[in-house]
């Protein structure tokens, strides 16, 4: 009788762990599927972090595996793990976007028109960096100042 209860207890415990892993965690997500690696270099990655989603047309097609600094080109080198089920032309472009106004940053992929598909280890040539809020505000203020300067000159 004791054994039965202890057996039930251990089963329930392991079951709870499985529930946590599968239902609460993302063990069942893209991370389990077969992936291929693609590299992309950005002038600025902003707040992009490893494990951020890679989306194409809003659908998650992979995850960011690693963000590092390339000391030759002085740009950020981002490694993407893309799902094998999704193939992209070689001239596809990657841009760093933000989900919502304050949301997390992710990578948006736009398919190109090339006949050849991306292979493992390829590099994405066309990239668009993260938008840095300070720079936009700076440009805006600069533009405003130039405008008022012109008006005064008139």
């Amino acid at each position: 009788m004791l054994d039965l209860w202890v057996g039930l207890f251990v089963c329930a415990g392991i079951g709870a762990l499985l529930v946590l892993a599968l239902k609460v965690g993302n063990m069942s997500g893209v991370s389990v599927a077969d992936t291929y690696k693609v590299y992309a270099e950005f002038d600025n990655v902003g707040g992009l972090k490893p494990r951020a989603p890679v989306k194409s047309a809003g659908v998650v097609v992979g995850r960011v595996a690693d963000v590092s600094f390339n000391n030759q080109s002085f740009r950020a080198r981002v490694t993407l793990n893309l799902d094998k089920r999704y193939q992209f032309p070689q001239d596809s472009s990657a841009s760093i976007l933000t989900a919502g106004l304050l949301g997390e940053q992710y990578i948006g992929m736009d398919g190109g028109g090339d006949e050849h598909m991306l292979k493992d280890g390829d590099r994405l040539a066309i990239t668009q960096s993260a938008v840095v809020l300070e720079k936009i505000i700076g440009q805006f203020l600069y533009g405003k100042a130039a405008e008022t300067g012109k008006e005064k000159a008139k």
Partner: protein
Amino acid sequence: MFNRSAIVNVRSIGHHTVNGLWRLGYASRFFGLILLQSGTSFRRLRLIIRELYFTGVLSLIIVLVSGLFVGMVLGLQGYQTLQTYGSESALGVLVALSLVRELGPVVSALLFASRAGSAMTAEIGLMKATEQLSAMEMMAVDPIARVVAPRFWAGVISMPLLAAMFSAMGVFGGYLVGVVLIGVDEGSFWSQMQNAVDFREDIVNGVIKSFVFGVAVTWIALFEGYDAPPTAEGVSGATTRTVVTSSLAILGLDFVLTAFMFRGV
């Protein structure tokens, strides 16, 4: 120069320090002895299973019910706060992360300390007071191998299982309040949760935490029982000390472990 009470005070500080160090050393030696004598209890698995019943199965009700209610409260409070920022859909993330990382391991360990740890101390303390442990030694049975080690392993095994059940129950409670009662969108509740909770970073770290807490709580409980003065007063004092010391140990260890695990990188 010095009045008498100052000298007495200084002397008592020294006495307490030396006494504390002495007990710490004894406790460490006791821990080593438990590990050395564990072979016997693994060869005789029935001993561990019996103790698993008393520490694990009987703590199940309190852990499950508290998990459910903690999750439900998290759901309610989290909704109140998130609603002000218009991000109710992140309720699942809030509930799951706070349970899996912190509340699951910590609260279930606190419950475990007061439910099972105190019982362990009282049992072993009484065994010592009624000279059952000495009787075992007389029969050439090592009380550490026969009585202490099976309880230790039962505690260490059941703690992560209880914490996992606490977290799972809490997530279910958060789901009940958030989705069923308040009406947060079910799809975003689960999908945002699954996007935010990482298996290695969050769930495995939570299990490691509860394993460490299991070792600490059972070690403290067993040592206090084994070291208890063999009187009624001594056993009751040891039981109180078990709950106080292990609760403090859990909270302190939790801070250290959290500082190591989640540095926001």
